[in-house]
């Protein structure tokens, strides 16, 4: 029984660890500037995790194999423990875990402890059940005024844009997010109803959108393309369908797009969505 248990534990360990080596079932290729550091931190962590997992399971299997009840020994080893061992393994574990914890803050700090650099490309994001609204400020780089009282879903004014405001003249609102490649992007995140979350796996970036708050986040994307965008916080029955796309465009293409008035903006977006393909699977 002990030997069978040890073997099964070891087989399960081997199979579990192997899953993490399958290429096609790994993170998608990253497209953001902080991703390299983040992926590296993940790799370090998962290696520590894998080693600890394997060591514990191998150790457990070894114990149940070797210390099965048998005729050779009449008694187990009588010991209540070892204070020395306790101190050693507590300290070593603490160093590794807290070390990982401290290392794991640096990417977070770089993204969250400082404001977006001045001159960042700004988009206002207004989430609702069950669609994404991206508000582009246009060439004047000033957002037109929005007012909840002006929201009219059936009239297609999803974000309550005040048409009377001169700054709103060059604004555009679309369900797809278009950002530049190689420049910092600042998103101003809002919600109309419940909590949502904006997520693009390739960006290695996620943030809740909380009604009643404007949350500002920033990052830099560096690979042009089209990427799937999902909602990552349960927001209602069609949460799974709250899908959109992220378009990362070269500067000139993006500049041309954002200079367009609303109706042409829509058309151009459709063209760009057709032009760029989703990345190949791993």
């Amino acid at each position, binding site marked *: 029984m002990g030997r069978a248990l040890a073997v099964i534990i070891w087989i399960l360990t081997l199979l579990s660890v192997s899953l993490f080596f399958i290429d096609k079932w790994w993170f998608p290729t990253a497209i953001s500037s902080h991703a390299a550091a983040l992926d590296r931190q993940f790799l370090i962590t998962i290696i520590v995790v894998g080693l600890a997992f394997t060591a514990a399971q191998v150790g457990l299997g070894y114990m149940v194999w070797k210390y099965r009840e048998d005729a050779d020994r009449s*008694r187990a080893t009588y010991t209540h423990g070892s204070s020395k061992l306790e101190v050693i393994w507590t300290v070593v*574990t*603490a160093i590794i875990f807290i070390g990982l*914890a401290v290392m794991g803050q640096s990417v977070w700090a770089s993204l969250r402890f400082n404001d977006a650099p001045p001159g960042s490309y700004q988009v206002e994001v207004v989430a609702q059940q069950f669609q994404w609204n991206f508000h582009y400020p246009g060439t004047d780089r000033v957002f037109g005024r929005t007012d909840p009282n002006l929201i009219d879903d059936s009239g297609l004014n999803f974000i309550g844009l005040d048409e009377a405001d001169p700054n709103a003249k060059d604004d555009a609102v679309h369900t797809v997010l278009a950002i530049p490649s190689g420049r910092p992007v600042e998103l101003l995140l809002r919600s109309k109803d419940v909590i949502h*979350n904006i997520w693009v796996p390739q960006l290695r970036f996620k943030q809740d959108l909380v009604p009643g708050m404007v949350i500002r986040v920033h990052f830099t994307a560096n690979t042009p393309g089209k990427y799937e965008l999902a909602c990552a916080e349960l927001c209602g029955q069609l949460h799974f369908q709250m899908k959109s796309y992220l378009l990362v465009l070269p500067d000139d293409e993006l500049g041309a797009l954002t200079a367009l008035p609303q109706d042409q903006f829509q058309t151009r977006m459709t063209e760009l969505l057709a032009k760029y393909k989703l990345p190949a699977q791993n």
Partner: protein
Amino acid sequence: MSGETHEAVHRHPAPTGFIRKYIFSLDHKVIGIQYIMLALVAVLVGMTMSVLMRMNLSWPGTNWPILGTLFPGGAPDGMMTPEFYLSLVTMHGTIMVFFVLTTAPQGGFGNYFLPIQIGAEDMAFPVLNMLSFWVTLVGFIVILAAIFFSGADSTVGPIGGWTGYAPLSALPNAGPGQGMGMNLWIISIAIFCVGSLLGALNFITTLLNMRTRGMSLMRMPLTCWAWFTTAVLALLSFPVLLGGGILLLLDRLAGTSFFIPGGLYLSGILSGTDERFPLHTGGSPILWQHLFWFFGHPEVYIAILPGMGATSHILSTFARKPVFGYRAMVFAIFAIGLLGFFVWGHHMFISGMSPYSAMTFSILTLSIGVPSAVKTFNWLGTLWGARIRFTTAMLFAIGFVSLFVAGGITGLVLGQTSLDLPMHDTYFVTAHFHLVMGVASIFGMFAATYFWFPKMFGRLMNESLGKFHFWITFIGVYCIFVPMHTMGIVGMPRRFAQFTEYEYLKTLHPLVVFVSIAAIATVLAQIVFYFNLLWSIFKGKRAGENPWDATTLEWTTASPPPHDNFAGHLPVVYRGPYEFAVPGAANDFVMQTEPEVILQAVGSGREGTSGNGHDGHRH
């Protein structure tokens, strides 16, 4: 066999009549069994819901005739609607976390065995004890009512997940199932809070006040330490959930705005412009998360600590060796309990709260991994140099260690703020918490069941069926939950009714199906457990007082124990709880009540019974 006893002070005479003996009983043993029975029913409901979820995810768009018959609204033409799916998610989580993981380990086994293990006749407050069970049962009935009252919405309850984030949970018009079903959900949880608090009060007072002579704190079995710490966690965290629940109910019914900000626009209506959507303003959705998770994090330690205690206890018993590092284990339990109150923000890194708070929570979170690791090392230390008897209880205890490591170690990933950016709200999180709560904790309960069944019912469970149950379940849970890490890494989000919308998820479909098949097989294997349990109550092989040759106080009395546990003679304790393999002793175990170690006669060579429940047998 034991040393001196001292006369007990009779607190209440043995009851007569079926109702007083088995229904409205004041006896902690009966109440413990009632809690376990409640959990056994609740887990069936929870498991059924999870199978339905897996079916929907693996074979979307399939017509399931039985579903269409049972739930014509929620599954028209046998195809589950997304809201029906989400209500399954919500109710599965709520029922499992509250009515399974917070009942059986503490209210069930804790109620039954804490008084006996400390040498008391009953809990400090038997009437409160009875009340705590019945209040909990009422809570369960109310949550089941939520299933029926949601029929109009074509769901089986609310759709906000067991975490019920506001404003989705605070606005009745935010989705189907968020009306009456949501109200009943909140009320059920509030009732559960009260039941839990009554129980916690009893556990703490009993342990502090009613230990028998000689039972110092450091001579208590680790199970008692675990139940005590769990009770303290419950005492200090459930009131916060109750407070939050009351605030949520007021937001929904009384027009307050604790969690609801202004300017909301739902289904074409702006808040305050129509009677269907009353005015709310100024509230903070994040406040709900703080209140919920301040409770929610200690709650997960409430779910696992009793299992850790049982594992330590059972590993030692069947390793025929003392627990390695008893004091360290006690400190680790305290550390986990204490630190458990300071890490709740790791559920909220990207909630919009201050990133500096997030960093603090992150570092504290990884610190809590240290006492958990220490416990694991000590479990391995307990097995080192052992003479292991592979009873079913022992197999599940060993399984606990394996699964706790598997689940807990990924906390190192999720606890880091940076790594939470890709992993939050993906199946990586689902894998993590299911392995620790839904598996390791349950293995602790299985181990406790097989171990203590003979004491509770005077009969042994069938070992062959038990071992079969173990193997299928152990392999099955690995197959179900390890692949979920992979799903999370690729980017599969949680709480999605279907994955058909996203190209990048298509590659995971074979894994999704594999997990579902493993889940169905594992759930079916539990039939063996239920059968074994019920059959053995009536037909199991008779057990004596101490079939396992164990050392703690419950094994000094009859199986099952008499009404006052010790037949009027409370035991006196002379030594610690894990005196196995004492050098020179005649037997390989010395009970806590043994005043003097009987030494082995030189050359006698006898070793006593094998302690597998069969005299003289070896495995």
